[in-house]
């Protein structure tokens, strides 16, 4: 599903250049649930942003679902994101003046799905994350866990090939974190490919594979026995 070869990325910080990713080789099969771990500054979020085409790599190859991702302009990147990817952010990134349902329906708007169908689908996905009754509420009226579940519903609504989650539990307490992980595991059970960036060990062990990043390179890549989040909920 994802093929990465020799990926480099550096940021300019004034006159200094900060080399964040120093040659990443990495691949993900369909249906995998991968945790990307590392301390802060290890480059894990940068990697995820490049995977999500939110940021561009300096050099290296990236193939997503058989499509080489290179020389992207914004329009093309937007098309790919819409077609291939769903995002879950640490800070939820819901549009604050739109209701839960409208937030979930937004990626469908960019897929040019009709209004009625959009609403039906949005309600369906909200139902899946258990928030159907909250459909008309604004993000400000929801708890952190609820917001993240809305964000997950929004990411799933576009029916992406890969779900990218950047610290999805970073802003949540542990009980809510497990609820969110439980949801992610269930989505993975349905065959969706998911990448989760986290720096929490327990969250990482709820995935099926852990990739450790340190100083811009992969230092460890191992399959683990998945811990089900269900039991902690």
């Amino acid at each position, binding site marked *: 599903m994802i093929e990465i070869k020799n990926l480099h990325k550096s940021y300019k910080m004034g006159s200094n250049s900060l080399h964040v990713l120093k040659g990443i080789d990495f691949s993900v099969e369909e249906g995998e649930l991968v945790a990307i771990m590392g301390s802060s500054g290890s480059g894990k979020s940068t990697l995820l*942003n490049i995977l*999500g085409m*939110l*940021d*561009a790599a300096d050099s290296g190859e990236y193939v997503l679902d058989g499509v080489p991702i290179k020389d992207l302009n*914004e*329009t093309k990147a*937007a*098309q790919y*994101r*819409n*077609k291939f990817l769903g*995002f879950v*952010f640490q800070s939820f*990134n*819901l*549009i604050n*003046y*739109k209701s839960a349902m*409208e937030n979930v329906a*937004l*990626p469908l*708007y*960019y*897929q*040019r799905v*009709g*209004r009625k169908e959009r609403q039906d689908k949005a309600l369906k996905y909200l139902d899946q994350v258990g928030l159907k009754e909250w459909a008309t509420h604004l993000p400000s009226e929801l708890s952190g866990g609820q917001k993240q579940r809305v964000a997950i519903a*929004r990411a799933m609504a*576009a029916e992406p090939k890969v779900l990218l989650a950047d610290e999805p539990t970073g802003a949540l307490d542990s009980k809510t974190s497990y609820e969110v992980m439980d949801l992610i595991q269930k989505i993975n059970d349905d065959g969706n490919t998911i990448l989760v960036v986290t720096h929490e060990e327990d969250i990482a062990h709820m995935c099926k594979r852990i990739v450790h990043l340190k100083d811009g390179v992969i230092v460890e890549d191992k399959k683990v026995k998945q811990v089900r989040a269900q039991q902690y909920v």
Partner: protein
Amino acid sequence: MFDIERWQEIFDTIRKNKLRTFLTGVSVASGIFILVILLGFGQGMQNGIAQEFERDASNMIGVWTQVTTKEYKGLNPGRRIQLRNENYDFVEKLHIDKLEYKSPMYRVFDTSIMYGTESGAYSIWGSSPDFQQLENAYMSYGRFLNFSDIQQKAKVVVISNKIHRELLGSIEDPIGEHIEIAGLSFQIIGVYGDVGGEREEEKIYMPVATAQGVFNGADRLNNLFFTLKPAETFEESLAESTKFTEELKTYLKQVHTVAPDDESAINTFNTLENVQRFYNLTGGIRFFFWFVGICTIIAGIVGVSNVMLIIVKERTKEIGIRKALGAKPISVVGLILHEAIFVTAVFGFGGLIFSMGLLEIFGPMVEVDYVVNPSIDFNVALTTVFLLIFAGALAGFFPAYRAARIKPIVALRDE
């Protein structure tokens, strides 16, 4: 533009950002409102001044004399030039086909007038029947002087409403009453009023020959007044009256032996030249109002631009989210511009309709000196609205375009 989905998205956004929408709208609507009211009053002032000017015959040419300032043909400077009946008769005969109204004038100031025990000091103007038209006087009672009064040198006078009130206040209709001027009795044949107001009502008219006889004027005159028949256009009228004035001056200088380059002995005034000045004045006023109006519009444009900048800034994160969800840059720019244009258009036309309605309803009620029926050219107002919409769109475009270009990850980080 006709994308129904986009419209729905915009209405959603507007419904949920009422304050933002309202503020954008008010800056647009107030700009239009101020411009329309301003230009309306500019037009109103122009109308008012035009009306003010219509009060006297606007193409009147007058002659008065002073002393010579130049030696000529052995005659010393400082000689007083006196107009005489023959001068008037000559001009009248020579230009009879061109003249519309004409009158000689023999004037005596501060003459004591008595009626019974009442008395007052007024000026006596000996003139011809045409003077009514020249002065734009209207009759309240009776009639003005007529041809046979002149022929018979009749001892008749036309008094003003003011004199009627001051001297003959007890008599409703003073026609046929006699007043005493310089020890002689004169019959009142008419009472006039002047649209120019009270200051124009200090005069008593009588036939010019009568005045000359009573006040030992012999054949002396103070002024000559003429109006020419109007030509097709203002420019032609002006050219003709300027030519006539020059001919008149040349003739008078010749018969009174005045140096051709002596500008002080024989003086003329030509109200048409004043009219020209008045045209220039209203031009100036119009220019001023346009200038202020355009400044207002520029202020409006700056206001709209500011609001647009703030809106885009405020929505940077939202733009990032939309882009992460698959919005193309063009669709982001489109969304913001579409909303901006829609809001400016609705409020722009709202302000236009409101202000024009105000002018239409209250304009005719305005009764202030120099402001008459303020109104505005609809096309001008409409153009302004479109200009503002265009400016708003342009002002929104650049920040929106820039925001759409920045990487979603940067936009998402924006707090």
